[in-house]
């Protein structure tokens, strides 16, 4: 295939930009003066935020992606689904850098930003990968930096333990997933996602068990990345042990990128009409994921009820959120999958900002008070009204209360489920949403109602930090009110490229 460089370049522009940014940050950190080093955070954050404009400026051509055209030798998708996820990942990276800025032992080291940039690069590649090889490379480019980040506070035992745990689980999951990939390759002789599907539908009457095994193995790998039950065990420990800015970053980027890839993988490799030996493969993975989704959200929510540590609470909450999001993935079974794809993309888009907002607030709280217990947040409204308000907006969004973005996010998911005749699943999900609201409200209650011993000691928010939180909070509100239409419509386009 002839390579038309200029036509193909925009599809990987953010990736090229990120690589450049990584090199710049690396050199600035090593060779720069102390003043330059202090500005590394700004260079990284602003750089990533600017790169987030690239997918908006260079929009893909519908004529190409609707026909499934791939770029760079069949490696890369260039479609709205990848674009929207790239934007949210870049913004997540930028915000994570800003929120880490003041953190001792994390934000004052230049390599932190370098690692965040590289991890984001992996996430970006995941959202557009079209080939098993690139899928795996991207996954590892995302994962390995995250293991390093989790153990970033080397002197801190909890951080080291968290990193080690994350790495062991992660390596194991990657290995299982890779084994699944190799089975798929072995039976079809193709590494291209669409090519695998074509080969399977062309004639694979014998390989039903092998394909199912491969499918299950791949789902296990994804289950680990998005912390779905029963592959969630690492989540609370890693979230609790890792430095809080890292937890914030891990909780959003790894999850968002994985959902992008999961949507693409399932629709491309196991399309609706694929039947082997008379068995519809889609029915199998839909049923599998329905069960995973129900168990994940229920377990996440029920266990979260018992948590007294805010980071562990948010860890279980993020497990539950993965369960909700899986509803959108399951809803792909419907005739018209644009609702399902749009609901997942929108949910992740708002989840990225929501979770960063909550974590951003919690990071500051922990940094100022040196405690992670929910009961110690008592009276936060009196100590810092704005901090309490920001955390509250974030928690409300997680709980799905308007005008925060979570209301629309959940609504779109439930709508997609009902549209795909999954009314029962929708009812289970709304019941779960109520359980979840209980523990979010308890945290809010503690901040606004309870009286703590330190009520008279105000917590000052650094100006710069306050602005980042304020803008994130504003985004969460906007995504729940006036900005719904553009983002949702953009997300709905994503189905066209699948």
């Amino acid at each position: 295939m002839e390579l038309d460089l200029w036509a193909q370049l925009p599809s990987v522009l953010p990736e090229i930009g990120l690589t450049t940014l990584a090199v710049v940050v690396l050199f600035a950190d090593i060779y720069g003066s102390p003043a330059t080093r202090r500005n590394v955070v700004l260079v990284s954050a602003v750089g990533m935020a600017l790169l987030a404009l690239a997918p908006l400026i260079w929009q893909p051509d519908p004529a190409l992606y609707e026909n499934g055209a791939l770029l760079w030798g069949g490696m890369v998708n260039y479609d709205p689904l990848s674009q929207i996820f790239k934007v949210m990942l870049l913004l997540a990276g930028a915000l994570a850098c800003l929120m880490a800025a003041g953190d001792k032992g994390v934000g004052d080291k230049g390599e932190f930003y370098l690692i965040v940039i590289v991890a984001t690069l992996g996430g970006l590649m995941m959202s557009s990968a079209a080939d098993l090889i690139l899928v795996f490379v991207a996954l590892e480019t995302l994962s390995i930096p995250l293991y390093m980040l989790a153990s970033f506070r080397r002197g801190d035992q909890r951080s080291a333990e968290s990193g080690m745990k994350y790495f062991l689980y992660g390596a194991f999951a990657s290995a299982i997933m890779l084994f699944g990939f190799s089975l798929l390759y072995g039976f079809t002789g193709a590494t291209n996602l669409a090519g695998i599907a074509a080969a399977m539908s062309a004639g694979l009457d014998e390989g039903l068990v092998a394909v199912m095994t491969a499918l299950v193995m791949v789902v296990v790998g994804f289950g680990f990345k998005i912390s779905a039950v029963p592959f969630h065990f690492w989540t609370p420990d890693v979230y609790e042990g890792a430095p809080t800015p890292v937890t914030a970053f891990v909780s959003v980027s790894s999850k968002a990128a994985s959902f992008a890839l999961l949507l693409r993988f399932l629709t491309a490799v196991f399309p609706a009409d694929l039947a082997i030996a008379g068995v519809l493969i889609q029915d199998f993975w839909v049923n599998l994921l329905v069960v995973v989704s129900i168990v994940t959200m229920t377990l996440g929510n029920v266990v979260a009820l018992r948590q007294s540590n805010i980071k562990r609470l948010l860890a279980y909450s993020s497990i539950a959120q993965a369960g909700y999001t899986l509803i959108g993935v399951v809803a792909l079974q419907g005739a018209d999958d644009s609702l399902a794809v749009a609901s997942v993309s929108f949910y992740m888009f708002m989840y990225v900002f929501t979770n960063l907002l909550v974590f951003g607030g919690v990071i500051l709280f922990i940094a100022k008070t040196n405690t992670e217990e929910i009961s110690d947040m008592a009276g936060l409204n009196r100590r810092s009204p704005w901090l309490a308000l920001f955390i509250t907006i974030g928690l409300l969004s997680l709980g799905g209360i308007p005008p925060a973005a979570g209301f629309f996010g959940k609504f779109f998911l439930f709508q997609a489920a009902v549209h795909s005749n999954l009314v029962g699943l929708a009812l289970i999900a709304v019941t779960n949403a109520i359980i979840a609201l209980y523990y979010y409200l308890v945290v809010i209650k503690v901040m606004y109602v309870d009286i703590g011993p330190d009520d008279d000691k105000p917590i000052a928010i650094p100006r710069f930090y306050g602005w980042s939180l304020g803008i994130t909070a504003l985004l969460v509100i906007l995504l729940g009110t006036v900005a719904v239409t553009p983002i949702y419509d953009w997300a709905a386009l994503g189905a066209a490229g699948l």
Partner: protein
Amino acid sequence: MEATGFSILTAIIFIPIIAGVVILFLDRKNRDLVRGVGVTAASAVLALSLAVFFGYDNYVKTDGGLIEQQAAMLESGVELSGAQMFVDALAFEQRVVWVESLGIAYHVGVDGVSAPMVLLTGMVAVAGVLISWNIEDRLREFMAFFMFLVAGVFGVFIAVDLFMLFFFYELAIFPMYLLIAGWGWVKLREYAAMKLTLYILVGSVFALVGAVAMYFAAGAFFSGSGADVFEAAVASGLLPADSGPYSWSIVQFTLAAENGAFGIDILGIEGLSFAKFWFPFMFMGFGVLAGVFPFHNWSPDGHVAAPTAVSMIHAGVLMKVGAFAALRAGVQLLPEGADIHLPWMVFLTLINVVYGALIAFRQRDFKYVIGFSSVSHMGLVSMGWATMNLTGMTGAGIQMFSHGAMTALFFGVVGMVYDRSHTRDIPSLGGFMKVMPWVGVAFVIGGLTSMGMPGLSGFIAEFPIFQGMWAASEQITLQLGAFQLSNYYSVIVIISALGIVITAAYVLRVAGQVFFGEFDAERFHDVGNIEMTDRIVLIILGAPLIILGLYPPIMAPMIESGIRPLIALLGGG
């Protein structure tokens, strides 16, 4: 129907929201400024809602007025279209497309049922701000959240888009939680606030799933077998020109209901129609907030635990939000389901009326008496909906307004007594008429209203409800095995009239023990008369009870015009 211009209703929603945000940014030590912004916003909203209420008739520009037009349609014997009548009755509309691809719009408007509710909300908003004048603890946050609560309540009443209705419904819940948990009665507030919030949310999210199912059923109908109905409606201007088959517009749902879109069988079971299956979710989902038995349990605790202003808005307005949404999203959109389910749900409302009154009678705590009396009176509203005829439903509409003002007045009275005496234990109070004559008179007016004394609004609300039940009883029989109970509605009327007697008993008991009898001058030596702000509260809430009682035509025909489309949908004349 062109409705794109700016509507006064938009101002009614956004003034409290903007005021709330502004208050959050004020200096917390500047209490006068916080209160000033709050009271200005609330007064502005009250003025606008008065304009909506009194301007409604003039705004609905039809020859000879809406009511005459509807009467003429009935006379002429043409086939009535509930959807068309509903659209004709809408005033002060504004429509802005919100999420175009899903047919969600910001669409506001009032009809004859919601216009009085808007007025009620305006009244209670001002009263709530005034009665919270001297809150010590974090006044700034209190005022801001109160403003958000008011905005949410307004939003539900004026929504003509079902999604928007849900949006504002959920929007109202969170500030309410925080107000009760943060500023309520210390002993009970955390438990009561959480219980109330979870009860209400459970109801609403199940209703939301039902609404999503309706959205797809109606959409499938309009893009399939009902395509001609849809095109005709767009051509005639019933639906806006830019609407698609899938839409959240209540008008469009009503049209779908009228043309049998919700009569389809679901789950593959013959006879289990869509409407039949989902009606309980929609009606009871919102009925939770209206305190329908057996989902009333949150309400007395919630009312007692809440700070006075929140009790007022909660019992006064929020329970009406539930009853109103049950009517709008339940009865209006799934009339076939209403036909089947309301005749048995009426028993639940009967339990509300009698059981609520009986428990109220047994309470020692002044505030619990009022809390349970709300359960009892709201039962009458649901009972009025269940009559499914013009008389009874109009009565229920009036009862919503009457009870709203009355119960807000009651909670105001309780708050004023409690703030000065620091006890709500009825036996230990007494003789307060001497020191707080204003409050005593207000309580007596409210009490007489609540027992349905002619000349006050309670009478013109409750009498039509019973009349409507009696009228409806002719077709309603109950078969229990071999035993046939004929005309059981008339039995219900008789039993629930008993509830009114019990009401009289507890009102007189409280009045006698709290406001008359011995005054313990030693214990209550520092109890004095009330301030100007409190008097304004009593006037704002008490005067409408008398005005409406003496001159029902000020509101009754308006509500009747709002009920008529529903009657047409329910297949009545």
